[in-house]
């Protein structure tokens, strides 16, 4: 039986949207999450088993 689940917002769902979605504006503070794999790389360091075959959700959009 397929179960439709509803539960509290998971961090990954949030990060899908906050780091890959939203309007990208270069603020005065140049973080440029959109342009770098920064966050992905750092999460990789934290979570060693990230699968390299999974495409980055933080792709360079320019």
């Amino acid at each position, binding site marked *: 039986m*397929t*179960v439709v*689940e509803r539960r509290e917002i998971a961090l990954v769902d949030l990060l899908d949207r906050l780091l890959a979605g*939203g309007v990208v*504006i270069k*603020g*005065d503070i140049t*973080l440029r999450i959109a342009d770098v794999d920064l966050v992905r790389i750092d999460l990789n360091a934290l979570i060693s088993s990230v699968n390299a075959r*999974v*495409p980055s959700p933080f792709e360079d959009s320019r």
Partner: protein
Amino acid sequence: MTGLRYVYAVCRPYGKPLQAQLTGVGGDPPRLLAHRGLVAVVSHVDEADFAEDPLRAHLEDLDWLTAVARAHQGVIDALTTVTSPLPLRLGTVFRDDSGVRTMMEAREESFLRTLDRLDGRVEWGVKVYVEAEPEPAASAAPEPKPVSGRDYLRQRRMRTKSQDDLWQRAESFATRLHETLSGAAEDSRLHAPQNPALSGASGRNVLNAAYLVPRVKSEEFVEKVDRTKDGTPGIRVQLTGPWAAYSFAGEEIAEEEGS
């Protein structure tokens, strides 16, 4: 306090106040910064945390990132109850109010166009997982213990075959579901499948999609997703939302990527 400005979203002016207890990133309550026909929702954040170098360093800290992401989402969520906000990406920071105003003015036309497109719409997330090991069918007799090497290999082959069948069923299930839901939505986006190491979810994520749905049609959309529960064994569907239209905020970008 040497405050920087953390911007959550841009909206059209809205009448109702945000809930009074709301705190944003860094514990600072969100404030409204009106400029011409737009309102930016901002918090004052500490330069020691949100200037470029500290921010970069903080992003290596999953706990810090989690706290900021939850706070950001909390503000967007509250905004979603009173208007249809245009969310900005996490970590959009300006020196001062005038920097925010300059940005709003420069992008005014594009903001207004996108706000029109998203007005009265919400985002629903739908994910499909396939279980790594199919659950043994309830009707089947317990598998006999292999008595020989040949028995063992035969049982293994059968398990592999049923796993292959399951992948195939999952793939066509996900494709059909995505087609159905896309037809019921105004727009859709496919996110990269989530890594189980990050999500902690069991099974493999084969569909991670977002759908833009008018608020008034949401109930209908959710029912459509709910009806998939009589689907295929070993396949799990997860619904999240309603979200602000995060995945549909970048109009120009989406068009470039779609080519």
